[in-house]
């Protein structure tokens, strides 16, 4: 048997997310956002991170607010159901944060290039736009076959992809379902994969359905058991989106002082023993849990 990769959240973040690291997160867009891992980066007071992701739905904003971030490569940073996010705005407007502006497609292509071991990928988007002014990773290119102008998107290879999955084993095998966004590309493009999981299960569960695996286990550096680790974002099969938490954060983060209060309540108290579910409370968890089950019809991998 290969050695277990199962470690505590603090150990995983301490080892695989050093100061200055380029970190891909939020790669499934609105779902499965690794909030637990992001909050641990805040607790460990990480510095000078580069954050990479399509949209980030307040996680990037929270890390910016906590002073962990010096650069962002993203298509959109904000709060999906309200719009702009204050700490991000403040940081850019005050010149404290460098942003490389992508679209969802150019970011997907940048990670795809990284995943495929290529230095760039072509695209037909963004041509004529000002994204070329604020992203040195975009250039124009002439197609060698058609002579047409295309966008060339420079590869992004993160130091670590931080992903939250539904179920994993101690070896890094995992199942993820729902919309996957750019998760597959981010995992394959990154030097390391730090995986948090709702459940740790027996390997047999995962090997029973190899098409459900997003990235092969040998590419995973650490596995962390983090139930409710994507809250307030939704996790298919486990819990719904907690809209209230997004609205509360928006209100509280309006001022730096309000942001600190939010952090004192939701980030600081979670410790090495990881007791976020306790902080969340039983009633709130119950309200968010799946009410209408819809199990998949199995398939057979026999011989």
């Amino acid at each position, binding site marked *: 048997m290969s050695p277990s990769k199962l470690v505590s959240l603090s150990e995983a973040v301490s080892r695989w997310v050093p100061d200055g690291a380029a970190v891909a997160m939020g790669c499934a867009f609105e779902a499965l956002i690794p909030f637990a891992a992001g909050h641990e980066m805040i607790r460990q007071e990480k510095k000078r991170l580069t954050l990479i992701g399509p949209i980030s739905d307040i996680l990037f904003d929270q890390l910016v607010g906590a002073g962990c971030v010096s650069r962002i490569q993203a298509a959109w940073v904000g709060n999906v159901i309200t719009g702009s996010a204050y700490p991000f705005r403040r940081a850019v407007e005050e010149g404290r944060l460098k942003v490389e502006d992508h679209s969802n497609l150019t970011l997907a292509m940048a990670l795809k290039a990284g995943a495929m071991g290529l230095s760039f990928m072509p695209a037909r988007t963004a041509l004529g736009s000002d994204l070329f002014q604020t992203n040195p990773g975009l250039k124009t290119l002439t197609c060698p076959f058609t002579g047409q102008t295309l966008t060339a998107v420079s590869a992004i290879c993160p130091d670590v992809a931080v992903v939250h999955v539904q179920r994993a084993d101690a070896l890094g095998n995992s199942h993820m379902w729902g919309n996957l966004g750019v998760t597959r590309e981010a995992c394959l493009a990154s030097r390391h994969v730090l995986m948090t999981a709702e459940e740790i299960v027996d390997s047999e569960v995962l090997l029973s359905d190899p098409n459900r695996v997003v990235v092969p286990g040998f590419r995973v550096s650490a596995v962390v058991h983090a139930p409710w680790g994507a809250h307030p974002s939704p996790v298919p099969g486990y819990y719904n*989106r907690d809209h209230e938490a997004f609205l509360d954060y928006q209100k509280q983060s309006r001022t730096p002082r309000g942001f600190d209060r939010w952090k004192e309540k939701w980030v600081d108290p979670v410790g090495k023993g990881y007791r976020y579910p306790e902080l969340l409370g039983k009633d709130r968890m119950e309200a968010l849990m799946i009410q209408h089950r819809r199990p998949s019809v199995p398939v057979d991998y026999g011989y």
Partner: protein
Amino acid sequence: MEDAYTPVELMVTAAAREIADEEVVFVGMRIPLLGFLLAKHTHAPHAVGVYELGVVRDTPAPSSILTMGDLPNLSGASWLANTDDTMGLLQRGLVDVSFIGGAQVDRFGNLNTSYIGGWRSPGTRLPGSGGACDLACLAKRHIIVMVHERRRFKKRVDYMTSPGYGEGPGWRAQAGLPRGGPSAVITTLGIFRFDEDSCEMVLASVHPGVSVETVRSQTGWPLKVAPHLLQTPVPTEAELAVIRRFDPEGYWTGSKKESIPFVEEARSRKKKNIP
């Protein structure tokens, strides 16, 4: 009885009417999301919805949703895949129509959702493109949904996040864009189309109770008006019933004011946790 419908409900209805049956629709957030659901339940039952996070669905979600990533929008979807799969459909030319919003628009339909006041030293940083730039570049046509204010309707946008017709006729082809361009702008005041020859935005329809003069005063360039100006039809009772089924708490559509949640700004609405 107060107003029979809210300003946002009127805009949702107008958005829905831009969708023809059997079209493939790249659905954005907020008003377009509701507009698509409305179209599916009225005149466009075979329309297919595509979402940038990697979702295709041709049936309505089984429960009300606040965002495209809410679990009911995934349950029973036709396809759950990757961003490059759904963006591939778009880039390949298989998407008929898409919807995007903006903070600033100009006479050629270019949109800014990134930097107010220029990117070198921005007065205001907005969230950025998301998929908007892609939808504006690659759909066969796209529709812009916006609040109509003079500071937003500028002669030239401060930053072009999502290309419209650029600097006018021929610009898109010159830039290398394979197709498309904006076909309509739906605002809080009216509906605009684009002149085929000049590529310039033209007022095509005013909302009930709105004068052309009001629209002109809120537009930062000399606005042209279509020869046969229409009045935007109000939502029918059937349409309102559908909208309210999908936004039961009025989170997106409830505001009586002309500030719409669609716009990328903080709002001061009563917060509710919509289940």
